[in-house]
């Protein structure tokens, strides 16, 4: 087995895409790890859909207790306030999302199609109306940029970058960039462009694990980590 990037390294790579001054939403899981990789010379305002903008790092239990659990993020993790933070309600938060005010959302993914469709809210094995849509559809459909960070394949080896999503869709044609444990792929009007490979991987090997066809960028390079 060739070596793939671990979760922290994937988060590091996608975090590098976040630009100074952006208002950014991070999904649960790998996306949330991006907070570990923002250099001090960059100001990123993190957005939580339960009504927080520009919050600090996660608080531990003692810190949270001292603050009376005053500030929590969308996963109910306690967070620390930082100067310049703003609080509001859910309705305001979803105006920010729906109105296209959020510069970027980094989301996890179950499948991304060759056209940039995203499926990430529900496995197809669920029956009936189960699952938790939450804010995923709003974020994917309305943020200015949608970055997906996920393993390149399922645990079984099945490709997650597919011709057509077979899992329930979150939003159509919404994804701009895919960062996986072996590649960085940009979604353009023409389809998927392979821009970077993880160290030790070549384009043909990435294509082999990708169901959708990849155009190889003339500037293809190895990820700098």
């Amino acid at each position: 087995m060739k070596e793939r990037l671990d979760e922290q390294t994937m988060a590091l790579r996608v975090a590098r895409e976040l630009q100074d001054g952006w208002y950014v939403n991070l999904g649960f899981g790998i996306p949330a790890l991006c907070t570990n990789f923002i250099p001090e010379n960059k100001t990123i305002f993190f957005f939580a859909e339960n009504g927080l903008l520009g919050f600090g790092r996660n608080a531990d239990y003692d810190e949270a207790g001292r603050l009376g659990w005053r500030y929590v993020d969308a996963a109910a993790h306690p967070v620390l306030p930082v100067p310049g933070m703003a609080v509001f309600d859910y309705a305001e938060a979803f105006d920010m999302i729906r109105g296209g005010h959020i510069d970027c959302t980094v989301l996890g993914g179950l499948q991304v199609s060759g056209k940039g469709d995203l499926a990430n809210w529900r496995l197809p094995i669920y029956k009936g109306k189960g699952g938790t849509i939450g804010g995923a559809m709003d974020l994917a459909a309305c943020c200015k940029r949608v970055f997906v960070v996920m393993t390149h394949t399922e645990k079984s080896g099945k490709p997650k970058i597919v011709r057509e999503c077979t899992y329930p869709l979150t939003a159509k044609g919404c994804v701009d960039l895919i960062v996986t444990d072996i590649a960085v792929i940009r979604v353009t009007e023409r389809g998927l462009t392979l821009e970077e490979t993880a160290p030790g991987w070549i384009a043909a090997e990435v294509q082999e694990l990708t169901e959708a066809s990849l155009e190889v960028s003339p500037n293809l390079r190895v990820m700098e980590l």
Partner: protein
Amino acid sequence: MPVNKVVQSFDKAIADIGDGASIMVSGAQGPLGVPRNLLLALRRKGVHNLTLITATGYRSVSAARFYGFPHAEDWIDHGILIDNHQVSKVICAMAYVPGRDSILQKQYEAGEVELEHLGHGPFIIRMWAGAAGLGGVYQPVGIGTILEQDKEKRVIDGREYLLEMPLTADFALVGADKADSYGNLVYKGTGRQYGPIMAKAARVTIAEVDEVVEPGGLAPESIVTPGIYVQKVVRAPPEVCK
């Protein structure tokens, strides 16, 4: 007669809520903003056949346990009404994680509970339409997804939108930090949650607050939910988690 919306007990505050009522309940993320004592009173009263309009279809016990809240097993939120079989319909943004021992899943699959699973933005925009007296709203979320089903679609300036119908309720139960006796509310931290929108969307709003002050005790500029939206106020006893 001076107006005083303060009610002396939780049981009195919810006395008008009967079988078949529709109820919006705020709070889902963290301990702030959850109207715990109003929910406990509603469980005591044992009203049935409720339509519950709320963020999640579950009790956040696992989250409470994970974050180390004291008495996590006794965590109180809107989920206690589902657990106690008082609900016949749930309208929510997050239904349940299948297989994670969900009481709503069991009740839904047994046909005991009707479920409308909306996603967050549509859930909120429908309440907003109800609050603002609109006949419906075209919004862009859910195109190409299961949320499209049975909804009118319209293209406006080249972009597709779905028509969402207004959502109102007989009652809203909200948690806030302080109220004055006219029902003006201020919130603490991320405890606002759905309080402001639900208070507007429901016909009768009952607020559970940590502190009640006289009119004038809240700076006018600081008021988040004006008292016109709030019909009853009741003060919560001090709690471990707060």
